[in-house]
């Protein structure tokens, strides 16, 4: 139920069927961050997966790259109404990282350097749906975009693709992360416009 806006016809009119409802295509790359960008050195960078069974799984910067970096071409959608189409990313599939992880839990909390968190269902991270990404559009990820490494979960709004990723923690319940506690949707599917609760 929208009111028609007197005199508005729209200039851009992106008709691309890859744009979810309420999104506008951009060519630059806007930034959404709650605080300063933490400076993370790849020398000391570490990525960890913790589950309820066994010790944590850890990778250094070199070790995670040795698992195999793949090229990904995907669209990304930010809750603040912009989308970027056909972005070229490089990263390591979470399928490789979860190969030896045993868990009966269904949810994941992503933790970042700097303290950011976001919650995601485990089955939306596996089967070729998410990566730890190091490069975008041919460049190492800039610090303001989450460099040196961020989670990449393109099927969900982009606040789920945690910048400055440090680790994943399996959890039994779908507990809310940082923005989810501050009014953003627990799930965040752009095609259902799951922006806010």
């Amino acid at each position, binding site marked *: 139920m929208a009111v028609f*806006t007197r005199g*508005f*016809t729209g200039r851009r009119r992106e008709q691309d069927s890859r744009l979810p409802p309420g999104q506008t295509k951009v060519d*630059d790359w*806007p*930034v959404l*961050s709650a605080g300063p960008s933490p400076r993370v050195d790849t020398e000391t960078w570490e990525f960890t997966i913790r589950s309820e069974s066994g010790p944590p799984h850890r990778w250094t910067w070199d070790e995670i790259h040795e698992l195999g970096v793949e090229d990904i071409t995907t669209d990304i959608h930010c809750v603040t*109404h912009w989308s970027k189409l056909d972005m070229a990313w490089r990263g390591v599939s979470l399928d490789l990282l979860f190969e030896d992880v045993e868990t009966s839990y269904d949810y994941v909390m992503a933790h970042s350097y700097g303290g950011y968190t976001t919650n995601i269902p485990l089955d939306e991270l596996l089967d070729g749906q998410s990566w730890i990404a190091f490069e975008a559009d041919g460049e190492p990820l800039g610090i303001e975009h989450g460099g040196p490494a961020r989670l990449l979960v393109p099927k969900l709004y982009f606040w789920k693709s945690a910048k400055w990723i440090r680790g994943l923690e399996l959890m039994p319940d779908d507990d809310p992360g940082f923005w989810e506690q501050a009014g953003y949707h627990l799930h965040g599917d752009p095609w259902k416009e799951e922006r806010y609760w």
Partner: protein
Amino acid sequence: MIRRGRAAWHVGTVREARPETPSARRIVLDVPTWPGNAAGQHLDVRLTAPDGYQATRSYSIATSGPDTLLELAVDELPDGEVSPFLVHELAVGDELDVHGPLGAFFVWRPDETSSAPVLLIAGGSGVVPLVAMARAHAAAGDPTPFRLVYSVRTPDDVYFEKELADAAASATAPLRVDYIYSRVTGRLTRDTLAAVAFPVSAAPQVFVCGPTAFVEAVAGWLVDIGHSPTSIRTERFGGT
């Protein structure tokens, strides 16, 4: 106390629209169903064409509290789709769909803060949510020390000049404003920032809002100077 309204769609009617700066316009919206908002929150404005085409953008609110008259200040982006319409076409009496209030992190509430001083740092139109905080601080007569460092191209480009002067003149809750005219005396630097900010020992709560590159630089300098990253809240606009 502000009732914390759940975000929802509302219809607003334009009550007033006038030039704010050479490139920006102030818009006063009457939103009778608005649940109130905290200082620093924003809303989405959605425009709908006759054939159903829609475009949505986020704008910070320069007012706060239970009032249902909301002030926005919209800067025209030369290549924009929504901002040129809002700056040039929108007229008093027009109706707009708005969704909000949005944002629960980049907010300042007079009733919930510690005695830590508050440092506001704005780049250009990024001053809008900080104006809401400065006004809320003045309206509450809140004793928390408040400073605003406002980087803006020239004196003509200052938003809410009178409101900021009024807040600065408040007897009970004064605001100190340091203007940095970037096209006149040069850009804000780390040294200037260190000189005008509260010292690290005062452990201020910091809010920074502006273009992405400005906020990235300022937030980085604050951390370099020694401010705790967890005390710095940011809001950015524009791309890289």
